[in-house]
């Protein structure tokens, strides 16, 4: 392990966690959580005062919570949504999260929200734009923002900067943290033809606060970030590399569609302990050429799911 100055922006290594999903609420209210921490989708709990809030309050009393958003739209050319940010801050006052994260993306423009994590053209213009907005958000939240690399399916002709350089410069200039999704690196690397290991080696490792792992789907010509499968061996190898380079950061297993029972989810998560010891599960990449595959599934955000 390397000795990294100001590792993780001074934030703790929380260990192994999973997303707090409504499919598991009943189980979690009756059983020990068996995980070190939970990540919540912020939008699921903003202005939600029903049973979900009750479960969140209970979990927050026994485990650390991290807030992960999908609607900040930090790269959009629309003005920042201050009403959303106020709601986010109010939720943070209630939850007292260890940190707040979102994605390097835009979700809409002209006041339309696509509810997708859309890619940015990686240019000097975009970088300046995102830097300015990250600084505004950090000033407002009074804490560093943590941004995740998204999975993507297209690149813009106009792009002049690699995603790892973009994130590195963003972290350097704003002091924001990075949420390194090694599955997204794998998916985007496959779709755009870059080396995922090179991507991970090129990041400023002291800025990495958290890692996401997940299982994607091979649709034949491209990979899709489906969050509905066990983590494949190739993603586990990237995870091991990332843990070595960062010196150890909080790990979160994302599983957002076809969500398994909680004990099965924990079994998948625990594989991460063996991986850092060098034991890589021999899990294949899931193949499904079907046309109905959807990236960034929203099952975990559905009321009656």
């Amino acid at each position: 392990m390397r000795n990294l100055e100001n590792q993780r922006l001074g934030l703790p290594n929380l260990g192994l966690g999973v997303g707090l999903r409504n499919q598991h609420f009943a189980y979690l209210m009756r059983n020990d959580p068996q995980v070190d921490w939970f990540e919540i989708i912020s939008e699921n709990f903003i202005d939600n005062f029903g049973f979900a809030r009750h479960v969140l309050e209970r979990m927050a009393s026994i485990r650390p919570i991290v807030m992960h958003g999908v609607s900040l739209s930090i790269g959009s050319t629309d003005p920042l949504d201050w009403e959303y940010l106020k709601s986010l801050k109010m939720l943070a006052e209630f939850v007292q999260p260890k940190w707040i994260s979102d994605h390097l993306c835009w979700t809409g423009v002209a006041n339309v929200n696509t509810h997708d994590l859309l890619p940015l053209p990686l240019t000097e213009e975009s970088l300046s734009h995102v830097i300015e907005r990250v600084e505004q958000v950090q000033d407002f939240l009074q804490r560093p923002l943590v941004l995740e690399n998204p999975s993507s399916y297209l690149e813009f002709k106009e792009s002049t900067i690699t995603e790892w350089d973009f994130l590195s410069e963003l972290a350097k200039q704003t002091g924001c943290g990075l949420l390194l999704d090694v599955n997204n690196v794998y998916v985007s690397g496959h779709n755009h033809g870059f080396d995922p290991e090179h991507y991970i080696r090129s990041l400023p490792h002291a800025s990495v606060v958290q890692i996401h792992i997940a299982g994607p789907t091979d649709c034949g010509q491209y990979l899709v970030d489906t969050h509905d499968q066990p983590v494949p061996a190739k993603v586990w190898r990237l995870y091991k590399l990332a843990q070595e380079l960062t010196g150890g950061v909080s790990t979160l297993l994302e599983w957002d569609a076809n969500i398994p029972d909680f004990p099965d989810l924990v079994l998948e998560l625990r594989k991460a302990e063996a991986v850092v010891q060098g034991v890589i599960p021999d899990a294949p990449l899931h193949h499904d050429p079907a046309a109905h595959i959807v990236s960034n599934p929203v099952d975990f955000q559905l009321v009656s799911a």
Partner: protein
Amino acid sequence: MTTEQSLGRLQLWMKTVVTERGSLADKLQTATQLHGLSIEDVVAEKCDLPAHKRLGIYTSGYVARLLECMRADFPALRRFVGEPVFDAFAKAYIVTEPSHSPSLFDLGAGFPRFLDQTKPTNKEMGALLDLPAEIARLERARTEVMRARGVEEEPAPPLFSPLEIFTSDLKVQATPCLRLLELKFSLADFFDNDTDQEQPPPPEQRRSFVAIGRFDYRIHVKEIEHWQFAFLQACENPASAHVAAGRAAEESGTEPAVLLAQLVLWLPVAMQFGLLRPV
């Protein structure tokens, strides 16, 4: 493209391609007309995966993702009209009224109104054409009750006797999560009995009143009498139960003395279902 304009212009172009109606070719044509950019101008061709295919992942994913949300928010309507018809309704709504909210919870808020505004005008079908919008209203209200502020975290209410109504001392208020609906069909039972049936028979067509409340995080969908509906409306703000009963009697055309007698019996029930609380 100037540097200053390029980010905003690219985003508007992509937003148009993702959210416009029609095939990918239709969407691209609209985007070119509106923003003066073609797919060849915007998307890099790499790794033997054509630009159209890359863009198609986003355009097909947009509708599919939001359709999943609509299916989850309106399960009873989905079962009643059948999957293909529901999907057609929902897709039309998604492309006609794109989301303006950061929360997917708000996505379905305008669906009942959309169904009402776009229903066919076939006089022979009569009120039956109102049924999809009515079911959607009820399902939306139920979803709102699930998330609204309730009384679970409040201190236990003071003990009271419903007979206090007669002394004018009892003050009550509707719970903050209460939703009241006046409907053209008898939908409360239909909604309750709907869970296991693939395609349930249509509900009875008659005026009905429904109250949806929450107590101890359990949702209660109850058909109520007209006087009960009027009484709960009169209790939106803290009110003397006696005064609210007077208003309800006037509103519903019920004899005041009869209403008061019925209210004594019904108040504990209303509180048990999370419709009302003493204050």
